[in-house]
């Protein structure tokens, strides 16, 4: 159960990147997670709200793009995607293949920001009307 640590690392990285866009709100965070990254999608989603609470990333949606394993086969020279993570054999020729080309990714691909237009109040700032209530 290290998904909470992973979620905290994401919040830290996104907060740092989003700080370059003052006034913007983080709407969405998109990840690329390999099938061998030892991260469970549901657990990460479960920890997301907890990790973002009270941070500049609070309220952002987490989109996890799970990536299958791609092996390079030395026998036939081809790169192929395998089904699942139970057998590291080239699906074309059946040989065992140790050369992993995809599957261990644990990356933030992009973030989607909502920015106020010029002259507009920062996103999330109270409107003047609310202030007087």
């Amino acid at each position: 159960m290290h998904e909470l640590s992973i979620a905290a690392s994401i919040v830290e990285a996104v907060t740092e990147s989003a700080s370059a866009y003052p006034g913007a709100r983080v709407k969405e965070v998109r990840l690329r997670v390999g099938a061998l990254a030892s991260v469970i999608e549901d657990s990460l989603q479960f920890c997301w709200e907890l990790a973002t609470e009270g941070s500049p990333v609070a309220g952002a949606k987490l989109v996890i793009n799970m990536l299958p394993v791609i092996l390079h086969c030395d026998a036939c020279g081809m790169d192929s995607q395998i089904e699942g993570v139970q057998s590291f054999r080239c699906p074309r020729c059946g040989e065992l293949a140790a050369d992993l080309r995809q599957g261990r990714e644990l990356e933030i691909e992009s973030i989607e920001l909502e920015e106020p237009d010029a002259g507009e109040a920062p996103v999330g700032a109270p409107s003047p009307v609310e202030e007087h209530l």
Partner: protein
Amino acid sequence: MTTRIVELRRGILKKNDELAAGLRQRFTSAGVLVLNLVSSPGTGKTAFLELTLRELRSRGAKAAALVGDLETDNDARRLAASGVPVRQINTHGICHLDAEMVTKHIEEWKEVSLAGLDYLFIENVGNLVCPSSYDLGERIRVALLSVTEGEDKPLKYPGLFNSSDAAVITKVDLAGPCGFDRDLALKNINEIRPGIRIFETSAKTVAGMDEWFAYLAEKAQLS
């Protein structure tokens, strides 16, 4: 309101990976072979390491160990009986060691200088999932499984076995009573990590330890 997409393409564990790269560089320039031992709780990492440290010491090699546990220094005290420097890392609830903890403990470990070591063993927290995401700067990641755990462990935890450089089967003296299917276990390890070196050992009978020491000596020469 405007929507903007910012491409980051950044590793989530970038900080850990950068620290691990720094550690790896330090280990390489000090000429110390560093191994990260990962298994479930109860596989026998500590007994295996105890035997390893004792034997290396009797062969005149300079070894040391960092040992990770959530709580207690029981393992460090056990390992210290082998006569080599041992330091406990308590993670207080965190299920894995990370490069920051290793960096901190190496810096605070005044009685040990990396340059004076041939081997540094890092015994990770007992867990087959989380430690596989955290690079500690090791040269060799060792996955251990005992004959009492079942032959399908590698299939259940492919993330760890696929990222390991060596696999150690422990407690082979209990293989008979457990009905351990050796061929199936070897096949499963090989399906997940084709070509990995596999050692079949017992800390009780010292079976398989000669091959393990030969492997360590061979790898240390390359350090």
